[in-house]
């Protein structure tokens, strides 16, 4: 049995039964990372020694019969925009934070540690989570395990690829406009964006504060549910995290295998329009047919503001907030400082010139422009008004259907460099995902097949706010009828 073939849930069961030691689980991942990361480049940093020490400590406690937690001994990877106070840097894949060591742990990291997880490393991302291919990383571009000449998607490309290539069973990512769901689709894994406010953002380096959310990657829906369970819940350090009284965290695993019936599935015309790759559409429609076979009803719905308008809205709201959130990177208190400057202002200007990549610069400038004197009403305020329209679209749709489905991404994984010439081309990768962030609702991408070129396709399922439990059950209904999770990418078999 190859330990890395086990899902997190199976590993967890074996660890509890003491059929598997945490040390062996960690070692298997360390070995897989050593073997595969040079090709896939999913990880920015790892600390094998620390992981081994931690695993040994967990083993001791498990051997003593202690209930160590939901993730006892299970290896996890963390996207490198979440603060870890463990000696590893937290870089956000940016040269401006290249050597920065966070003096505190993100809330989700505290939760992972409290539940006994073994953190195996920090994964690559588009710089400051800005991108849809991980090509914007300030250090290196992650490769898609299914075809190393193609992108894994982004911005959580490292986490998606690490899970797909079985270097770790589960990983955390962040989703602002689709940054978990889209790479999940392109890498053939499960990726979920919880409702805004479900998981604390304390310690997640902010990109767009009103859109960012941390979520799980796993090869199965059950694994995603497990990681969500470990990280969801109120945090008093995040004023936007929902309270336990208002929205208690249910037991996602307990009800996972209960189908939702009757099930009314909304299909927005807007998600099946121009720009959608026919092979992607075919795989998605096949998945919908599986749901019909289970008794679900397919219903046409309208989300008139959810695609192009959503992208436009997203690129105003997200860039405006980003320009504000990234103002702090100035070389004064932490991070990179330019060594060659004449005065204070020059220091700021050169530090940020040197430290930020092109996409980050573009978005900061776009956001600064949108917020500057005289433009606020035309851009930011207007965008927030359209945001309300987008939210209303979903509210109205969810009055008649239980969920909305469609393709996660308009295409399967594209080639490295294919969309980098024109930023707008890349932005359109988020065309089906960004509206969910703007409306704050929950969404998941599950694998639903492959293209002719054997590239994964993802099915996106969206449900209303704080309905993760039902969302996971709906996803599980389909997963139970299919077997995409058992496919491993060629890179795992040693083929490159």
């Amino acid at each position, binding site marked *: 049995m190859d330990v890395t073939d086990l899902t997190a849930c199976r590993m967890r069961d074996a660890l509890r039964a003491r059929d598997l030691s945490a040390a062996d689980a960690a070692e298997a991942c360390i070995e897989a990372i050593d073997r595969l990361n040079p090709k896939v480049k999913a990880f920015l940093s790892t600390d094998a020694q620390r992981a081994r020490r931690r695993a040994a400590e967990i083993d001791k406690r498990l051997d003593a019969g202690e209930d160590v937690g939901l993730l006892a001994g299970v290896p996890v990877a963390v996207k490198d925009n979440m603060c870890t106070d463990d000696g590893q840097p937290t870089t956000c894949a940016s040269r401006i934070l290249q050597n920065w060591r966070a003096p505190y742990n993100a809330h989700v990291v505290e939760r992972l540690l409290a539940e006994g997880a073994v953190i195996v490393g920090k994964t690559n991302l588009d710089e400051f989570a800005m991108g849809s291919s991980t090509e914007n990383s300030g250090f290196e571009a992650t490769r898609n395990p299914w075809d190393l000449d193609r992108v894994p998607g982004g911005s959580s490309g490292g986490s998606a690829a690490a899970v797909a290539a079985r270097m770790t069973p589960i990983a955390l990512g962040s989703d602002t406009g689709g940054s978990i769901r889209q790479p999940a689709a392109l890498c053939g894994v499960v990726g979920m964006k919880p409702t805004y406010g479900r998981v604390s953002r304390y310690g*997640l380096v902010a990109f767009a504060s009103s859109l960012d959310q941390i979520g799980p990657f796993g090869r199965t829906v059950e694994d995603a549910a497990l990681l969500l369970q470990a990280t969801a819940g109120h945090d008093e350090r995040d004023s936007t995290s929902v309270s336990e009284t208002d929205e208690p965290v249910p037991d996602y695993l307990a009800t996972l295998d209960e189908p939702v019936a009757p099930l009314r599935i909304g299909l927005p015309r807007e998600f099946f329009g121009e720009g959608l790759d026919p092979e992607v559409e075919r795989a998605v429609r096949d998945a919908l047919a599986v749901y019909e076979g289970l008794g679900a009803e397919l219903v046409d719905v309208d989300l008139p503001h959810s695609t192009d308008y959503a992208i436009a809205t997203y690129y105003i709201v997200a860039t405006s907030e980003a320009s504000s959130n990234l103002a702090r990177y100035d070389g*004064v208190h932490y991070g990179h400082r330019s060594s060659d400057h004449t005065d204070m202002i020059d220091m700021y200007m050169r530090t940020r010139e040197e430290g930020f990549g092109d996409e980050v610069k573009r978005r900061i400038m776009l956001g600064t422009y949108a917020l500057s004197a005289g433009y*606020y009403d035309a851009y930011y305020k207007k965008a927030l008004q359209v945001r309300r329209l987008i939210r209303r679209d979903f509210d109205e749709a969810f009055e008649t259907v239980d969920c909305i489905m469609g393709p996660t991404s308009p295409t399967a994984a594209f080639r490295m460099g294919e969309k980098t010439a024109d930023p707008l081309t890349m932005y359109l990768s988020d065309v089906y995902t960004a509206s969910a962030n703007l409306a704050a609702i929950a969404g998941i991408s599950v694998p639903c097949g492959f293209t002719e070129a054997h590239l994964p396709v993802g099915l996106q399922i969206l449900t209303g706010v704080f309905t993760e439990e039902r969302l996971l059950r709906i996803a599980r209904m389909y997963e139970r009828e299919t077997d995409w999770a058992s496919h491993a990418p060629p890179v795992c078999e040693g083929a490159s």
Partner: protein
Amino acid sequence: MSGARLIPTIGMEVHLHLATRTKMFCACAVEYDAPPNSRVCPVCLGMPGVLPVMNKRAVELAIRMALALGGTIPDFAQWDRKHYYYPDLPKNYQISEYDQPLGVGGYLDVPLDGKTFRVGIIRVHLEEDAGKLMHAEDGGASSVVDLNRTGTPLLEVVSEPDIHSAAQARAYGEALRLLAVYLGVGDCNMELGQMRCEPNISLKIGEGPDGTPRYTPISEIKNLNSFRAVERAVAFEIARHREEYEDDPDGYTLEHLGKSTRGWLDDREQTFLQRSKEEAHDYRYLPEPDLVPVVPDRKWVDEVRAALPELPETRRRRFVEQYGLPEYDAGVLTADREVADFYEKVAEATSDAKTASNWMMQDVMRVMNERKVGIADLGMSPANLASLIALVAEGTINRSIGSDVFAKMLETGKSAAQIVAEEDLAQTSDESELEAVVDEVIAENPGPAQDFAEGKDKAVGRLIGMAKKKTGGKANPNVVREILVRKLRG
């Protein structure tokens, strides 16, 4: 416009540090003399990934101040980010409230030269303070930053331009400070930088052809560290605006030149230009996405309003009317809320408001100033003081012995009666005893005795003083005076 009256039109923006234990958005302690960067955490350092969480007490104090100013608390208040780059502002934005503040409207009645004038309040809002930038001790190559102060809760009070002179500006600042201290909203020690006043000054030129008022450009003055500086800077600016206008009446207007920011140089007693209208910051306000709006519960607001103490100006007026005190006394006594509370108990117990006031000012407050303590730390209760005053009123002891007894009461904690008994301080009113003393005094002081006999009233003071000396201070001065009159003026 020649011959037009130029009316100084001044609005004040005052920032006060709130009397909270922790910062506005994190749980770091607010302390004024902590070692550099020892009261900081990832949140107030603006580190990647951190988030702000509102301080409940700061919100409560802001509501208290807004209500005391007669303002209203809107149903909905929102935080905003105000962006500018500076090394003492780690996030390079300040969390403040832009267009939906915690309190709107109201007014403050300000006493000045025996009258009061009213200043309207536009708004009251909360924000966080920045850190301290200092020059390094390396001969000028660097500056250094201490972020202890970053995140300290600030209350900003913005007034209407209802102030029309330098003296009024100062009086307003002082009255606002007194109110804040009274309410326990802030300690407002200007030397510690706990209160900062920024006057906005222009001159009203008159009215344009369509009846709308016309103004000179507005100057906002920063770096004022004392009320004296406020008064001087405002006076300087009024004169400067006047000069500039007279030099160029067509060009020197608000439409042409807008608002500029000027700094005050205390040693040179003048202002200098810091930022012109063109260089004004573009703050790029953004509703703060990390903080949820404040929707003050009406019940809570009503509770805060009900708990408001009597405001200092109201109390001052009441002391004049109810106790018949002169304006000056009333002002002194109400300048400190605890002193005023103490006084009222004493006045009630002795039924002599004026005497009680004199004791407060001459004895109690003198010792407070000498020892630099508050009235609560003196170790004297209103009842004890009242009984001391009664002993003097009854004639058991005279007034100057009374002061001695007061000092001994503070020292020993004993009651007035106890001390008088133990030290045999009761004054001598026995006529026959005092007659003998008076005879001696007259014999030993023929000059003053002669003066008094001839009608010079002032001389009696010296004679009474001598009699007191001979009796260890215990001679009842009134009886001594009677005897002197009898003997010398027949």
